[in-house]
């Protein structure tokens, strides 16, 4: 698994095909929201909604690219010829997507705070990081599954969002509900634990589903 993750991170560092595009998309979307909402700043539910919708759309860009090298450069064949458990490809790709999301958020969330967010988010940074990491895990698991499905088709740019976005609805609800009390103008409130549980359950359910079906996605 280390070989697979290392290979993907090396290729991304060299080509910059996923992370810069995801980051640029996120920042551009924040700017668009700034003008479209005609507000100097947002807070609470609106802020959480803008943040999560933007991050999920940016994630779709990364998901679409996740298996391109495996498909176009024979990586699937090279991997399938090796005496390696096929599930390790799923785990490695999910880990890579998780790293991409974290890297994007390290820049996109501060950009959001500067461009759009009214209240200062610093008091709630640990809670916000917890929500981001739990949601990223869910996006990584679901995204890897959908990316592997989409890459088998000719129209992956269409298939990936069509499949991923509806399946992410529970995740975006839970992530936004968990985040909104952290971004209130009057000051951050306590993190609602039940939405963290929902995020955890989402990660678990899609993780188990992916383990069960990923092998079949690699079959001809």
């Amino acid at each position: 698994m280390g070989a697979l993750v290392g290979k993907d991170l090396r290729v991304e560092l060299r080509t910059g095909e996923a992370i810069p595009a995801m980051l640029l998309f996120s920042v551009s979307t924040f700017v668009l929201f700034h003008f479209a909402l005609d507000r100097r700043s947002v807070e609470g539910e609106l802020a959480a909604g803008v943040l999560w919708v933007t991050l999920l759309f940016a994630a779709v860009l990364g998901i679409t690219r996740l298996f391109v090298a495996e498909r176009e450069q024979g990586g699937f064949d090279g991997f399938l010829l090796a005496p390696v458990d096929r599930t390790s490809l799923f785990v490695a790709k999910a880990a890579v997507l998780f790293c991409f999301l974290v890297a994007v958020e390290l820049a996109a969330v501060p950009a959001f705070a500067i461009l759009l967010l009214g209240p200062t988010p610093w008091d709630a940074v640990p809670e916000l990081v917890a929500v981001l990491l739990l949601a990223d895990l869910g996006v990584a698991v679901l995204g890897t599954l959908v990316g592997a499905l989409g890459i088998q088709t000719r129209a992956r740019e269409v298939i990936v969002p069509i499949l991923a976005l509806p399946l992410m609805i529970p995740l975006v609800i839970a992530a936004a509900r968990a985040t909104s009390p952290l971004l209130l103008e009057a000051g951050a409130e306590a993190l609602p634990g039940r939405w963290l549980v929902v995020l955890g359950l989402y990660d678990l359910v899609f993780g188990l589903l992916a383990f069960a079906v990923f092998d079949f996605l690699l079959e001809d």
Partner: protein
Amino acid sequence: MASADSAPAVALRDLGRAYGDRVALAGVTLELPRGATLAVFGANGAGKTTLLRVLATLLRPHVGDVAVLGHALPRDGWAVRGRIGLLAHEPLLYRDLSARENLRFHSRLHDVPEARGRELLDTVGMARRADEPVRSLSRGMAQRVAICRALLHQPELLLLDEPLANLDPGAAVAVAPLIGRGPARVLISHDVEQGLAEADLVLGLRRGRPELVAPASSIGAADLKGLYA
């Protein structure tokens, strides 16, 4: 019944494979002993690459029985992965990684010491260009690196699709000992004379069906002309 160790390298009985309604391979029956070479001839679209991919465990057979190194496919595919070396049309190399990085990656997948990759790159004359991205290499150079990849784990069965394609005469001489006799080989070639010279057994395919299965010693190039008509 033969044990897996003494079983033929390849045993096919009535093998068939289709893509949707199109039959790519049908009725292929043959047995290839260990250490022997099967040369596969046929025009474009005759089913040669499909046969290679079935033997490599990358495609499921739809009809018939397939056994590779004594293990039935697709059921026991896990037992032969890592014992097969595939040199396909495409080099199966990541274009943004260097030759050395590609071999290091495959070494780790196959649990082979990295020194083996360095040794092979030296042998095929690619040590000097080993740190350049594969996308900057010529097709012949990429083919040399692909040969290293296919041989990295010292496979017991080598599946070779036009192994000398794109190679200049010097490179062809350099790689010849590496892909020569030793392990069992299935060799696809459009060079009939060369293919026959290397083969013990010949399979001639026409539109997915075997027209000819015979010992190489019993046939000449003229017998294969009909496959390309």
